[in-house]
């Protein structure tokens, strides 16, 4: 049988010999490709761990805060003078500090002494007195937050080798801190303020709750708008719209929108929502609307891809027993596409969570202390808070910037993990 020539092979050569000859080359190629893949992944892991490492190593200290124990004398002489709400609480704190350091007499030194504790101490005392006025007349040990400079000193962020005149903490203050430490009056504790307070210009009083709530309200608006609108648009375009030049045009535009720099959406929001509709500046409502514009293309594209991936046999099955198009979509196609749609939505949301540029235009890049309680209250969002802190001169904001970044990353990781879990959970194989 001279099959070889019939197959177009040179006579005397069997196909298997040729296959075998090329085999090692094929495997080599495959090994090389795997190697490239692994090194690409390793490289990105390396960058990622570098990023995380640097942020976490800079930021973890912000989750602790230095506290100083003061023996506060709730002096009836000061506290009964006026009504208790407006009494001179800073005076109470100052008096206690003076009693602890009786040797401090000059005006300059006293100022330095008062500066050792956060000016929040007075508000803390005020709250205590208002809650239980029977304290008046007693002397009680109270832990108050240290000033940010002392906090930085305790965390070792100051170089003590430079000449005294060039340090933010001078030798006198160092001596005071030493003394407080010897008396066990200095302690590092978990920094609750960081999670329960709004922004502040005093680092030791600054927290991310305001920004987190702002992000929450903003994303709530974004989700409530972009999810249904995104799904509706995707379903309409994919299942109902005729395929013609108009729908092509719409598709091209949607794809383009997904690539538009986000600041453009901010400009649009400024022109439309603020100037035309007269919605309030800096409000999560407007932020949410702007981010909706930004996330919609992502959601629509992801949803359409996900709808497309539902096998046509399922559609035919439903139509074949007399389901209407709407029933086919809602009973079969949409449930099957949902994991993909949810993944797209969460990824869109995660992008919206990290976005700050478009919010600049609508006034959400702002110093806002009060924690927003609704959609129209002035608010800022987490990435903006990070940006604002990064731009603050106080040294203690450096670690808080990183800490806020850690929180943001944590949110992003949770969201993306949810996307993965949802996909895993609902993913069906046909």
């Amino acid at each position, binding site marked *: 049988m001279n099959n070889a020539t019939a197959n177009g092979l040179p006579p005397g050569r069997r196909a298997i010999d040729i296959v075998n000859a090329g085999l090692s080359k094929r495997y080599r190629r495959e090994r090389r490709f795997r190697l490239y893949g692994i090194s690409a992944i390793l490289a990105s892991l390396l960058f990622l761990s570098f990023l995380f490492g640097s942020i976490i190593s800079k930021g973890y200290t912000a989750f602790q805060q230095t506290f100083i124990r003061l023996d506060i004398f709730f002096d009836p002489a000061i506290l009964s003078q006026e009504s208790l709400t407006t009494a001179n609480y800073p005076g109470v704190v100052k008096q206690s500090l003076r009693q602890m350091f009786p040797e401090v007499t000059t005006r300059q030194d006293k100022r330095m002494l008062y500066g050792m504790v956060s000016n929040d101490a007075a508000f803390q005392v005020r709250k205590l007195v208002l809650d239980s006025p029977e304290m008046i007349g007693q002397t009680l040990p109270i832990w108050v937050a240290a000033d940010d400079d002392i906090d930085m000193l305790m965390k070792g962020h100051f*170089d003590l080798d430079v000449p005294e005149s060039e340090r933010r903490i001078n030798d006198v203050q160092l001596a005071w801190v030493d003394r407080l430490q010897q008396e066990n009056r200095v302690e590092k504790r978990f920094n609750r303020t960081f999670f329960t307070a709004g922004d502040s210009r005093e680092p030791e009083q600054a927290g991310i709750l305001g920004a987190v709530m702002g992000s929450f309200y903003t994303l709530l608006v974004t989700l409530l708008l972009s999810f249904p609108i995104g799904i509706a648009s995707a379903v309409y375009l994919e299942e109902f719209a005729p395929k013609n030049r108009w729908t092509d045009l719409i598709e091209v535009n949607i794809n383009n929108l997904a690539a538009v720099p986000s600041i453009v959406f901010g400009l649009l929001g400024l022109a439309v929502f603020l100037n035309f509709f007269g919605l309030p500046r800096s409000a999560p409502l407007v932020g949410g609307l702007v981010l909706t514009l930004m996330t919609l293309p992502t959601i629509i594209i992801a949803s359409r891809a996900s709808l497309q991936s539902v096998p046509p046999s399922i559609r035919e099955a439903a139509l074949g027993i007399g389901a209407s198009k709407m029933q086919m979509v809602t009973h079969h196609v*949409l449930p099957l596409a949902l994991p993909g749609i949810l993944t797209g939505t969460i990824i869109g949301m995660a992008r919206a969570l990290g976005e700050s540029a478009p919010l600049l235009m609508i006034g959400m890049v702002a*110093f806002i202390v009060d924690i927003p309680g609704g959609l129209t209250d002035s608010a800022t969002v987490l990435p903006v808070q990070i940006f604002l802190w990064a731009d603050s001169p106080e040294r203690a904001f450096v670690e808080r910037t990183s800490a806020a970044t850690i929180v943001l990353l944590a949110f992003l990781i949770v969201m993306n993990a949810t996307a993965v879990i949802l996909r895993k959970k609902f993913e069906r194989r046909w």
Partner: protein
Amino acid sequence: MIRKSILLATATFFMATAGSAYAASARDNISIVGSSTVYPFATVVAEQFGKTTSFKTPKIESTGSGGGFKLFCAGVGVEHPDITNASRAMKKSEYDKCQANGVKEIVEVKIGYDGIVVANSKKASPLKLTRKDIFLALAKNVPDPSGAEKLVPNPYKTWKDVNNSLPAAKIEVLGPPPTSGTRDAFVELVMEEAAKGFPFIKAMDKNDFKAAAHTVREDGPYVEAGENDNLIVQKLNANPDALGIFGFSFLDQNTDTIQGSFVDGVQPTFEAIADGSYPVSRPLFFYVKKAHVGVIPGIQEYLTEFTSEKTWGEDGYLSEKGLIPMPDQERQQYQSDVKALKPLMMK
């Protein structure tokens, strides 16, 4: 079913949207915009004000001085800001815009001074510069080194080229971009002043002079470092040969790692800026829309807080944040003007 709930959610949402438009008509917090240089000071006052009074804490946006005036002068009404901060005085053109949009009465409040420093890392020794040195090092076109009275593209590569008494280090200055108020002030206070020292430049017509004095070189030695002054500070630490240009408050917060260069023989210290001997300093302002006083709750009280001695005085809390207070007399003058809400007049 899903579709129905989608429709429902969307409808509810638009209703909520429409409803909130009404809510916006009753703003109960002061809205402040403007300069990023004044921002660190205004925010401290706002926070203090919010804590110690029953009013809400004012909202402060950092939009830059020009951006602030634009928003401020857009009109009267709750959707427009009540106060704008500025690291320079209001320009006539901006004043006219305000007038045209019905913002008739504006109260100007000067709050103090800010020094602009040229600083380097403590790892190097402090530089003793003159404004002329800085101009020659950073201008795009400089007077011909041969002495001829004409401008040539900046040939200087090292500080020693500029001035023999300076070290032979490469010129490398990190500074703010043109959008920044700090840059405006720097150009005006350093470059322009130095340019005037050359009679032939001073004699140029207005536009030519501006071009000569205001244009910063783009061939490398001047690096636009973005608006983030903290970043500049970090970069200086990494590169001892580099100089940085930023506001005094950042030097004040980082005196352990960086130092201010001498400018015309004076080092940027709190005292030197306050008494005016340090040449590169500028006044900071804010402007109040008088029509909003009494409409938006708390404006009057905010003004009182800002202009009290414990805030902007010699020992006030703003000085701790790096603001250089005005002399006593000027403060008193402004305090009484503010109390009377004396409107700004520009002819």
